[in-house]
């Protein structure tokens, strides 16, 4: 490690010592935040928004679920997961297959399928609601476990991991496009009529979907919150900031990373599964390389290493994206591009860290005096690894 000038005690201390108290770590403040979130999501939003806007918000909530997972894997764990579209897509397609089968009736066939061709065996797996729900969690979870084990055990990390995960999303999208007869090809799957027995064209049921998404999202944030507070969370951060040191202390760092990676994958899959009945269509365009990186924009903007940053950032970016692209089509691409450039390059703590960065610049002009990799929201630079760029990181 070329750039690791910090004393070795830093990582060790971070494993054992309780985290420094920031303004948001107080228990009361935390409870208040959850209460506000619940009031906004369950009270204010459904009361004030039209059905159309509420449906959009529900869609954004699904994307935010992916962001929560990325926040854990990337923000706390330092793994840049560039291929979350793979897991998002798996969850979505499994849900879509189930919805198509249940809409088609007991022995029916999905609408898009050419008459005469046989239903592939793996469609039948997801005919019953129980196996479909199990599949949504288990298939992406197991795949992430397999990928994570094979990659992290061999200590493939940093950029190499990012590129492999991106390639996996690219390959998955290509695979879907090529399967015109079995999974709808580039058109994807659409026209679902019912969701576990509830008609999807009924506005009451559409509201119910929104409430489910809101509840699931809050639950996910709570899970990540618990993980971050736990010993495991300390360990994950320690692995992010000094994997070698954590390993020398006797921890199985590969397993630590695999757990966060699997949790992120399952969150993405659940987001994808709820995305399908809410939006009504899933196609390879939602799962490839571009949407996979798109998930990251919100996380970066909101502050990757914070608890609420990924959710808020993701919601804000989704909202800005839909509003701006309604008005000027190409404008949003420029805004998204420059937002990404500016935030990642100059505000790695997210937009929320502007004040802290300005404050610390004024107080201490020498940036290298600041503690490195402290994942508190008020830390100006939560960038994990002091890493060794020049040696390629592997």
């Amino acid at each position: 490690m070329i750039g690791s000038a910090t004393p070795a005690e830093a990582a060790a201390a971070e494993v054992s010592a309780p985290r420094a108290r920031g303004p948001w770590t107080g228990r009361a403040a935390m409870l208040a935040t959850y209460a506000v979130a619940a009031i906004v999501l369950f009270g204010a939003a459904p009361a004030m928004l039209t059905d159309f806007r509420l449906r959009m918000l529900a869609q954004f909530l699904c994307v935010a679920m992916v962001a929560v997972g990325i926040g854990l894997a990337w923000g706390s764990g330092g793994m840049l997961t560039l291929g979350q579209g793979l897991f998002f897509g798996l969850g979505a397609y499994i849900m879509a297959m189930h919805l198509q089968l249940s809409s088609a009736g007991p022995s029916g066939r999905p609408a898009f399928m050419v008459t005469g061709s046989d239903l592939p065996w793996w469609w039948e797996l997801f005919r019953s609601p129980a196996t479909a729900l199990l599949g949504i969690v288990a298939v992406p979870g197991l795949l992430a476990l397999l990928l994570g084990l094979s990659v992290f055990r061999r200590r493939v990390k940093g950029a190499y991991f990012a590129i492999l995960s991106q390639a996996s999303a690219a390959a998955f999208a290509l695979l879907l496009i090529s399967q015109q007869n079995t999974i709808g090809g580039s058109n994807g799957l659409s026209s679902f009529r019912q969701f576990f027995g509830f008609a999807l064209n009924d506005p009451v049921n559409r509201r119910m979907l929104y409430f489910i998404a809101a509840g699931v999202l809050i639950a996910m944030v709570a899970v990540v919150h618990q993980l971050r507070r736990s010993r495991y969370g300390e360990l994950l951060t320690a692995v992010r900031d000094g994997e070698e040191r954590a390993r020398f202390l006797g921890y199985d760092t590969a397993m630590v990373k695999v757990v966060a990676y699997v949790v992120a994958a399952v969150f993405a899959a659940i987001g994808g599964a709820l995305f399908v009945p809410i939006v009504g269509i899933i196609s390879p365009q939602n799962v490839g390389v571009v949407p996979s990186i798109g998930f990251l924009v919100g996380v970066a903007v909101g502050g990757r290493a914070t608890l609420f940053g990924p959710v808020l950032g993701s919601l804000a970016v989704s909202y800005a994206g839909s509003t701006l692209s309604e008005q000027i089509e190409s404008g949003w691409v420029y805004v998204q591009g420059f937002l990404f450039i500016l935030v990642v390059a100059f505000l790695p703590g997210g937009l929320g860290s502007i004040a802290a960065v300005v404050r610390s610049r004024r107080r201490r002009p020498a940036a290298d005096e600041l503690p490195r990799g402290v994942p508190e929201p008020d830390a100006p630079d939560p960038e994990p690894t002091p890493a060794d760029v020049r040696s390629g990181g592997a």
Partner: protein
Amino acid sequence: MDAVLGQLYAGLSLGSVLLLIALGLTLTFGQMGVINMAHGEFLMAGAYTTYVVQQVVGGAGLSLLIALPLAFLVGGLLGVLLETTLISRLYSRPLDTLLVTWGVALVLQQLARDVFGAPAVEVRTPEWLKGNVDLFGAPFTKGRLFILGLALTAVLVLGVVLRYTALGRRIRAVVQSRGLAETSGIDTRATDRLTFFIGSGLAGIAGVALTLIASTQPYMGQTYIVDAFLVVVAGGVGRVRGAVLMAFGLGVLQATFAYSQSVSTAKVLLLICVIAFLQVRPQGLFSVKSRSLV
């Protein structure tokens, strides 16, 4: 026999395209550790340079020859611009470089879309690159042969520059030990910029080559960039040798898979092969021997 040769040629042709793209990446990613997601867009800039030159000059043959050095310059200058404005601030944060350059790629794609329009523009193939030549009894398109030659020439020139010139020595010194190079009086910042210029310029040349076989459109860079990154990852850090072997290896492998399966299944199998390969050699095919832990 013809079928085997045909697959081999298809693989060689794909491999030479991958090689041209991966060569630049080997320099910027392999040697400097900078993951430049906008590399594909430099390629796109090279392709549009060919288009513009052809609009100005007219003759397809002459304009191709003019476009080659010009695209190298365009790609290289874009690269230097990116390096000095953004990447130089981010050398200690390789993953963030990836995201920032993706933002740049996004902007460049949209820019190309706004300037040249979303549909593909027509770049004419010169007469002397049309048709096939017979090679050992199987046809090989002249355009693809040209790309193969271009890729091999680029490898040769890059290899000679890296190995025998003062500039190459400087680059290698900076890669192997930045601190020591600096102590010895090498201007590492200037070397970084120059490395980036060459690497990005190579992307421009790859763009010119691609106009012969692919359509010139704003998103063309994205088609090959993931594969090219895989080549560099599997080939080993900053190894031209590794990039050459892996580019042709992956090219032939994909062509072989694509022969029995569909192209997309071939892509998936290829990815599985790369992951399996990294199980055996996590550092890639060739790696710099080092006692460093990371």
